[in-house]
């Protein structure tokens, strides 16, 4: 733990804040932290108010629960209700509202939903209950994809036929591209995810830096990582360059984790997919590859997830795109609170609305 303390040192934090303030211009620099874990770390560290006036941190779409369309929840509930499937899910998904209900509410009404800590636990569950179909709700980004892929391969090798995955896997760089091109968002720098970058490699952001002229810095999740990353973005802006830099070089490499990438390529295939609040982004999804089709719950049960933009006063979409801050949504903290969430950004522990609500000085 002494190692972690090095990344939480108060004196170094003060020095970095001073440097960020002196490098910032007159108007606050608009930076986006792409990843939900960064959003939470920034809120928990009280970093946003520390930089107010110098830097505006916009929260990006990097919370897997938040960008999962409500049609996905509806499909999961239908598999449980109509096909008598035993649903296995990460705990975060339970309170996410679908069109008319949530897994938590359905669970209260008798739907069987088990919370698991890893996709492999769902395979174990399936092996232990051979007379029930176990559907794992495979939601995540590039960080979770290898674990979901590993579970599918394990089920395949062990011949666990009553296991399948309702996949909702998305890739980050494509979403960053859409936001970079959006003139309304006006991003001047991307604080790129730590764990995703460990898998895909820091080179994955080069096209964004090159094409849109936006500086990218991969940063770790500790307070000093974040402050250092922000400082590096400001330095790039100051000297007028836009490239990919790596603050998280202790773990992330330019090429990333080849083994994990191979696993993703083996089990998944790229597809177009819908992001809640943002819309369909071409090539931003990973569907289960045809050779593993028997583990694809959508195909196995002929029950495709339908993406349809939802119509409500909830402005999660604009929050996910960085167009507004959570506090600017008319529902925030009133009709929409963590106990009774209206939109997914208030549900997930990584959601930006939840982070603002929980850690913001109201």
């Amino acid at each position: 733990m002494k190692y972690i303390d090095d990344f939480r040192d108060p004196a170094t934090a003060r020095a970095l804040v001073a440097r960020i303030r002196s490098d910032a211009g007159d108007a606050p620099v608009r930076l986006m932290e792409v990843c939900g874990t960064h959003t939470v770390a920034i809120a928990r560290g009280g970093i946003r108010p520390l930089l107010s006036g110098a830097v505006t941190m916009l929260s990006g779409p990097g919370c897997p629960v938040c960008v999962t369309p409500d049609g996905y929840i509806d499909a999961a509930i239908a598999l449980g209700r109509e096909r008598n499937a035993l649903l296995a899910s990460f705990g975060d998904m339970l309170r996410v509202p679908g069109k008319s209900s949530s897994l938590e509410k359905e669970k209260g009404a008798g739907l069987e939903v088990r919370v698991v800590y890893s996709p492999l636990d769902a395979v174990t569950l399936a092996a232990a209950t051979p007379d029930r179909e176990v559907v794992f709700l495979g939601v995540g980004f590039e960080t979770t994809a290898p674990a979901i892929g590993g579970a599918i391969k394990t089920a395949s090798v062990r011949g666990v036929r009553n296991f399948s995955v309702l996949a909702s896997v998305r890739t980050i760089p494509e979403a960053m591209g859409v936001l970079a091109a959006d003139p309304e968002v006006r991003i001047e720098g991307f604080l790129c995810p730590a764990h995703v970058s460990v898998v895909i490699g820091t080179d994955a952001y080069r096209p964004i830096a090159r094409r849109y002229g936006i500086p990218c810095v991969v940063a770790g999740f500790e307070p000093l990582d974040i402050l250092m990353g922000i400082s590096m973005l400001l330095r790039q802006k100051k000297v007028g360059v836009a490239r990919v830099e790596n603050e998280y070089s202790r773990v992330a490499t330019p090429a990333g984790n080849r083994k994990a990438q191979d696993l993703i390529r083996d089990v998944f295939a790229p597809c177009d997919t819908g992001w809640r609040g943002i819309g369909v982004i071409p090539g931003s999804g990973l569907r289960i590859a045809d050779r593993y089709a028997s583990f694809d719950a959508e195909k196995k049960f002929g029950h495709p997830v339908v993406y349809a933009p939802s119509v409500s006063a909830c402005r999660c979409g604009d929050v996910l795109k960085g167009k507004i801050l959570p506090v600017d949504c008319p529902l925030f903290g009133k009709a929409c609170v963590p106990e009774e969430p209206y939109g997914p950004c208030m549900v997930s522990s990584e959601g930006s609305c939840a982070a603002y609500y929980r850690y913001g000085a109201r």
Partner: protein
Amino acid sequence: MHDKILLSHGEGGKRTRDLIAKVIARYFDNPVLSPLFDSGLLGRIEGEIAFTTDGYVVTPPFFPGGDIGRLAVCGTVNDLAVCGARAVAISCGLILEEGLPTEILERALAAMRDAAREAGVTIACGDTKVVERGKGDGIFITTAGLGVAVDGWRPAPPEIRPGDRIVLTGTMGDHQVAVLIARQNLAISAPVLSDVAPLSDLLLPLLPRFAGKVRFMRDPTRGGVGVTLNEMASAANARFVLDEGRLPVRESVRGVCEILGFDPLYLANEGKAVLIVAGDAAEAIVAALREHPYGREAAIVGEVREGGAGVRMRTLAGGVRAVDYPVGDQLPRIC
């Protein structure tokens, strides 16, 4: 005696009598309970009476550093102690699941006896029910506790004022992490012991010694220090500001929290107390706490400030953020 609990052990007949006389009363051998009357007769008690109740459903019932029996006694003793009362008598309600190995029951009873001895409290009465297999989780214990308050002391949230200090008697999260690891479904191991302990000897001597200086005490069990402080701040209508760098957390607990994404602020403790004390006595109170084995790592962790009710934290990064109630964590039963 049978090696497993049967439904007939709870039906009131000879087997119930056997269970009580040959097993339970053997562990709880004291002049109040041993006659096995329908009530324990405690005699005349002087002073203000404090009265509390609690239920214990922890799974697994045995975990590193403690078990459901020790938990049941300590939890009750501590609820009284933070109200300034020394526990005098505790009841023991047992809800046993058909098929429970008698040996498990005996281990829990022995732990209750030992914890009661340590806290100087009498297990004065009891009740035993047996539920069908599948309708319980091995063993549940309910207690009521009766205590006598230290003369002249009462919890006084309205007296909390800016400049008061927030004192924590030791490290956060030990109990919950020990129980989580004991559940063995997390595929991690760490040398963490539950902190479950009776706090009356740690806390009660402070009250006459620092008269007028201890305003309010709570034991941060379920929901941890974070939730307890929020409740205390609401009760006192005061603003608490914590110092992230001063919150004591054991290295091993921190390690587990880093891996699993838990915040030690919200993890349960069973042998800790939070005290709001006068600023001018805080250092001396911490020094006194540290003299006791259960208070070795006591620390001032924050202060009371001007402003509306609520809890804030000065972070290591130098910022300030809110410390709120957590919502709907998917955590197993831990007490």
